[in-house]
């Protein structure tokens, strides 16, 4: 049975994510220490709130090199919401660099869209699918997922597989680079297709 590890770095609550994996009859545990990472088949990098605070927290746990070892072994990792953003090169929300696993940058929506747009972007919004991204398999085109964020991921890298969502501008709502995945929305709060996406991830 696939064993999922959810990386804890004291940013946001993990209850809903754990409940989702339990619903999918999956073995799931919280990872509190980098040395435990090798014990898992797949990892989730969660996170909500502020990039600056989160990356400092993440760095203080010393997770980076052990997760990079995990990725090097072609095991799968999924970043969710702020977890997805941490995987990028940098964010306008911090002077501290991101993890640099994905060639993309995190921008404040404010600097990208009309100022009349209500921020944060909260609620159900649709995702334009990309068939190269396996975690979206068997999910209908333009299905809605639950978002809550003020910053979003953009890239100039045409080699990155992406799906986009429109909120004043097309931003990256899902990305994939080999065995690294990221989603801006909360699959654990996105009803049946959110669970389907997590199931696809488990079954990779």
């Amino acid at each position, binding site marked *: 049975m696939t064993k999922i590890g959810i990386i804890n770095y004291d940013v946001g609550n993990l209850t809903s994510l754990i409940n989702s994996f339990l619903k999918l009859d999956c073995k799931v545990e919280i990872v509190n220490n980098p040395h435990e990472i090798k014990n898992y088949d797949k990892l989730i990098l969660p996170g909500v709130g502020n990039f600056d605070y989160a990356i400092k927290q993440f760095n203080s746990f010393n997770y980076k090199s052990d997760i990079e070892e995990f990725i090097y072994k072609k095991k799968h990792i999924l970043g969710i919401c702020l977890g997805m953003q941490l995987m990028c090169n940098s964010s306008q929300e911090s002077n501290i660099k991101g993890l640099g696993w994905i060639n993309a940058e995190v921008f404040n929506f404010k600097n990208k869209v009309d100022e009349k747009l209500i921020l944060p972007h909260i609620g159900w919004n649709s995702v334009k699918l990309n068939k190269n991204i396996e975690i979206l398999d068997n999910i209908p085109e333009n299905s809605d997922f*639950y978002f809550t964020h003020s910053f979003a991921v953009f890239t100039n890298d045409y080699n990155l597989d992406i799906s986009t969502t429109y909120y004043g501008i097309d931003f990256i709502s899902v990305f994939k680079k080999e065995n690294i995945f990221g989603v801006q929305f909360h699959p654990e709060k996105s*009803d049946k297709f959110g669970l389907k996406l997590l199931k696809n991830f488990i079954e990779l």
Partner: protein
Amino acid sequence: MLKKRIIAVILIKDNLVVQSENFKHVNVIHSNTKIAIETFSEWSIDEIILINVSNKNSEKKFLDLLNNIVKKVFVPITVGGWITGLDYASELFKTGADKISINTEFYRNINFAKSLSDKFGKQSIIASIDYKFDKNTNIKSVYIDRGKKSVNLDPLSWALKLEPFVGEIFLTSIDHEGKRNGYDLEMIRKISSNIKIPIITFGGVSNYEHLYEGFLAGASAVAAANFFHYKEFSTILANKYLRNKNINLRKIYD
């Protein structure tokens, strides 16, 4: 495109789901709260709002209940009732709440709204505004203490004061609540045309057309309690009815 939302409100008194009329909670609708909430999640509701309407000193009991009932809910959950401090708010988030909704304590101390936003993010804080016609002053006034006390304040002025600190306004007409005649459309129009953050409207729904009227008046989300409990697949049918009328809701599948 960002969607409009349908929200189910569940009022909880002493661990039971109760019916409400003008903020009086008498009839028990559901004795199994867990099944009630899981049913709405299963029926693809967009969000659920759980309000603790028990008497005071019920915070711990509500937290235990929440812990027990959210395990199979995979849509966003807002909780409200007796939230007066950061610690309790923090406990609610840890237990699985995505947003918290507050009325009375914001009136007593508007800095509490700011502290909560700073700590948990504005998107997770909802200001609940309850109001009714106050016979003493002849205006529609904000009420606190679960509809018991008028504070002689116009709901729009109050909404404008709260707007910098919260992500949404949960607007309830106490006069309409439980009366089955639809929302107070005039107030929805007045507030939604003057503030930028989303309005959730609540109180008075007894048919799908009432939900439609709420959206036309300017609400971003329409909420109902009693009405959704009494009809099989109510929220799925509401979604279909409203999408047929070109309301921009998410497409759900049976």
